[in-house]
């Protein structure tokens, strides 16, 4: 067994990241025109309810079959080879971010003895901003998903706060606001 090394510490993304981290195709998890694609986005708020204009929101998700084109998904991808699965959107001066994506499929639960145990469709989310020294991790679930009722992560959260993890339908897409702090504080996770 080799020596274990300490992770390099996280530091703030700072106020001036946009010229380094903004990609023209960042918000496009899938290209425009992809069948079933929709916009999902919202506003990032601080503890005083003020929009955060210097945050960057990143998402990571399975393809619509619930698979990842990645060596650590033993099943791999079948229909969605080269699906990027990743989105990145810096917030605008009004604190808004927006991504174009498709709905992921449900995921098998690791080590699952129970065949019908699944994580409901969701996006993993990282939030970085000036003022935060570490990444904040949250999840976006979808409204009107029956699988939400059985999702092992959602059901582990206090029911009063669970709704902070569920997007609102805003046809033709979804809205997911992120409250860093305060009365409506979003549920954040440690991994």
């Amino acid at each position, binding site marked *: 067994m080799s020596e274990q090394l300490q*992770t390099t510490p*996280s*530091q703030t993304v700072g106020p001036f990241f946009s*010229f380094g981290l903004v990609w023209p195709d960042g918000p496009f998890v899938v290209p425009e025109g992809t069948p079933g694609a929709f916009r999902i986005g919202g506003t990032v708020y601080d503890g005083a309810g003020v929009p955060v204009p210097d945050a960057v929101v*990143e998402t990571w998700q399975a393809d619509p079959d619930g698979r990842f084109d990645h060596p650590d998904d033993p099943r791999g991808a079948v229909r969605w080879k080269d699906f990027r699965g990743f989105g990145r959107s810096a917030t605008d001066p009004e604190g808004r971010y927006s991504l174009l994506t498709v709905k992921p499929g449900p*995921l098998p639960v690791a080590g699952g003895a129970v065949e019908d145990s699944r994580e409901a469709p969701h996006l993993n989310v990282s939030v970085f*901003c000036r003022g935060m020294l*570490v990444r904040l991790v949250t999840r976006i679930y979808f409204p009107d998903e029956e699988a939400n009722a059985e999702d092992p992560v959602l059901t582990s959260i206090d029911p009063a706060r669970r709704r902070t993890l569920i997007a609102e339908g805003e046809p033709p897409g979804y809205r997911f606001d992120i409250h860093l702090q305060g009365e409506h504080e979003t549920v954040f996770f440690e991994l």
Partner: protein
Amino acid sequence: MPTYQPHTYRPDTPSHPPAAFPEYRSNVLRAPHRPFELLPQRLGEITGPLLGEGRVGPHDNDLTLGHDGEPQGQRIIVAGRVLDGDGRPVAGTLLEVWQANAAGRYRHDADRHPAPLDPNFTGVGRVITDAEGRYSFTTVQPGAYPWRNHDNAWRPAHIHFSLFGTAFTQRLITQMYFPGDPLFAQDPIFNSVRDPKAREAMVARFDLDTTVPEWALGYRWDIVLRGKNPTPLEEEDDDE
């Protein structure tokens, strides 16, 4: 049928700053108040975007190129390796870097520091690690810059780094500092890392072997991403 057994990643919270660190003033209204909930590491956590060559242009590893002339300042080379917590190289992973120019000014509309912009310097680079996890880029030494956190506050010179590794768990945004900076003691961002050894790991070292004669000073900085837990499956393999 084999049970699906993921490679989970070891906890690394003690290396990182706390979520709440009020000495960094803009943290006060942005740090969550409620404790974090535990997110089990399943497929979506142990996988992550594998962003490769398509994201890097021909001059992206040399921040002194791409303009009409050469930027002002001390030319430097920053090189090192990206490793996981077991010392294994992280190959083919994207690094994104951004920084202030030699005068301590960012090419960003919100930067009001009255120091000159340099028409020959933007301050953005991208590189992909090779099979041994090595990266290298050329730039100029960034200047320190003032900010309004406290009276006479100055950020030590630094380069911002963003890395993906191979899993959502390994995502890291950090800053690299330069050795012996007299501004460390008063910087709450640097000192938000409470473990002295972890703090020291953010400081590059000057390296004569990386230094190119009559051209550029060399700095070495290795970056460590989260390491994996051993899996029961791996232990079985070892027995064979």
